[in-house]
């Protein structure tokens, strides 16, 4: 069953010199028991999208489209209803969570707080007991409820943040770069924990990261974002091993496969910088950095379209079956010249 359905979402910030479109028409769904990855880099709009799911976008941002949580539109619901939906229907683990805990409060109290605020009738004793259970659920001893954040390591604090997100038994969890500041081993522990929760509790999980290798190995489906749009979607593993959009390819190649002679002493980077959202290039917004762009890419703005079974890509040079439309000798179809 679909938990989250985002339809044609646009989010525009008002800048000093005109509007800055951060999200430019995104469709996305997350079902029960499904892990969906959202990949992209700084400024691509992925964190704006994450906050808009719970209407937490900055004041002043103009939002159009729909964000349906269990068929109810978060963007238009009344304030009281929104308050009930946050935490209980969906919760967010934000980026930089390591600094988001209150240093002066015991972690057990911080986990219990949303229960006391959002579930009327919950007693302090019940909330404390549930906080201890949640800590065990995320792999920490229940006795750590009495710990202060500084007494915990980075990985343990991230577990506390996840326990807090689970406090009101939400069905959807949005995790924005939950492992970015963590070591590989701790990252593996946290990813194991998240995917285990999805399997055990039937949660839907939207996992946001700039690391396509993490998403590829964790997610059922992955969407890659560039300049406010989704430029490719497909099964997670396929997107990492066999991306079709040139940007998704570059993102996948950024993390080498150890043992692959191709990456040995030859790191793959993508020259150039992401475009300024206030001054997007004409045509395909990726064309100035694209190594295979043709003349038509400067004029035509490709929309997401089928690119093989279960996959889609927004690139003029990717055919409907997913095969490239240019040959190795660079022969480009007539209409694209």
């Amino acid at each position, binding site marked *: 069953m679909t938990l989250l359905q985002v339809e044609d979402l646009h989010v525009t910030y008002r800048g000093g010199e005109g509007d800055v479109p951060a999200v430019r028409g995104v469709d996305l769904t997350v079902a029960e028991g499904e892990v969906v990855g959202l990949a992209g880099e700084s400024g691509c709009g992925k964190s704006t999208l994450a906050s808009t799911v719970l209407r937490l976008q900055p004041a002043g941002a103009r939002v159009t489209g729909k964000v349906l949580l269990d068929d109810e539109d978060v963007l238009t619901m009344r304030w009281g209803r929104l308050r009930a939906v946050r935490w209980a229907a969906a919760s967010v683990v934000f980026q930089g969570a390591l600094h988001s805990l209150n240093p002066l409060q015991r972690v057990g109290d911080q986990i219990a707080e949303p229960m006391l605020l959002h579930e009327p009738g919950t007693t302090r004793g019940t909330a404390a007991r549930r906080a201890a259970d949640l800590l065990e659920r995320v792999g920490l001893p229940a006795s750590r409820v009495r710990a202060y954040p500084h007494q915990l390591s980075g990985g343990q604090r991230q577990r506390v943040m996840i326990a807090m997100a689970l406090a009101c038994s939400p069905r959807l969890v949005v995790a924005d770069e939950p492992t970015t500041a963590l070591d*590989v*081993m701790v990252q593996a522990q946290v990813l194991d924990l998240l995917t285990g929760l999805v399997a055990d509790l039937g949660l839907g999980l939207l996992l946001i990261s700039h690391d396509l290798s993490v998403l590829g190995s964790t997610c059922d489906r992955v969407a890659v974002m560039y300049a406010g749009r989704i430029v490719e979607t497909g099964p997670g593993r396929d997107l990492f091993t066999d991306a079709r959009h040139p940007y998704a390819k*570059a993102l996948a190649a950024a993390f080498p496969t150890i043992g692959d002679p191709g990456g040995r002493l030859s*790191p793959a980077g*993508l020259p150039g*910088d992401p475009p300024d959202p206030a001054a997007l290039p004409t045509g395909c917004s990726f064309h100035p950095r694209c190594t295979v762009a043709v003349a038509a890419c400067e004029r035509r703005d490709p929309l997401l379209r089928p690119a093989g079974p279960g996959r889609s890509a927004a690139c003029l040079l990717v055919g409907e079956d997913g095969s490239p439309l240019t040959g190795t000798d660079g022969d480009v179809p007539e209409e694209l010249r």
Partner: protein
Amino acid sequence: MTATTAGAGPAGATPEGSPLLALEDVHVVLGGHGAPSARAVDGVHLQVRRGEIVALAGESGCGKTTLARTVLGLQRPTSGRVLVDGVELGTSRAELRAWRRRVQLVPQDPTGSLNPRRTVYEAVAEGLRIHRIPAETGRREDDLVAEALERAGLRPAERFVARYPAELSGGQRQRVLIAGALAVGPELLVADEPVSSLDASVRGTILALLLRLRDELGLSVLVVTHDLGLAWNIADRLAVMYLGRVVEAGPTEEVLADPQHPYTQALLSVVPETGRLEPVVLRGEPPDATAIPAGCRFHPRCPALAAGPAAGVGDGLAARCRSEALPLLPPSAGHTAACLLRDAEAQAPGNPASVPDDG
């Protein structure tokens, strides 16, 4: 590529003569003063030859950053020696200044490491002024700044000199810091997680820059990281650190294609990629340098030891893992690992050693 040499002999005598950087049995004890003292670096031999990129990999708390600080002369070793080109790191101001001209840091977080109120020019010129390089070389400061910026890939330099950090992308900021390090003409760069805070597509361009600097200027690089993919991308040799010690070291291809230490095996297995290895997710956090376990320091988390006889570990061997102190890995160009299980396997009859013993 360096060949495996049996019997590399005493520290310092490597195939290419004396290494640029040599750490000899370095120990760093932090804390004390009432707090429990932490053996952050607990006996490390490590060498970086000229024009060589060495990756020092391990988890937070393994001592790799303390070791990097020691190499930079920011942390005095409690015992052991740090040498550049055979000259020991001294303690006087003049000695430290001379040292820092030869050994420069590329920091982890380019945004936090640049003063937001100072231009790119000021950021790069700072080191030149500290080391009085224009006076010494008779060259103009602005020429030196422009040269360093262009070496770091910020071309043409005049487009960047007057800009402020906020006007630059993350990758450009990292290049400014690299230019600042290059400006003083160092022989060794110490890069602490040089790409961990950068976007994925920028990561490769910065790593490619480090490779190019090695090729064009013959620079040596000691890169501290928790990212084995980075080591695969740029490092000639890899040393894996656990709780203050190097537990495995060797040419990067050999260590990553055929890891010998159970810790290296576990680290490699959790690198998210296409599932070449069954992931071995170690439980718990890296242990505490204030309470290093007896015996092999990895034994409380060792998956091979936990598997016991199933992994071919008999009771006698297991007891040794828990109690027997392991010798330090000697400085060596070959592939070495500090693990009793591996040694026992290599010595078993009919089981030729897969790793030559360089000791």
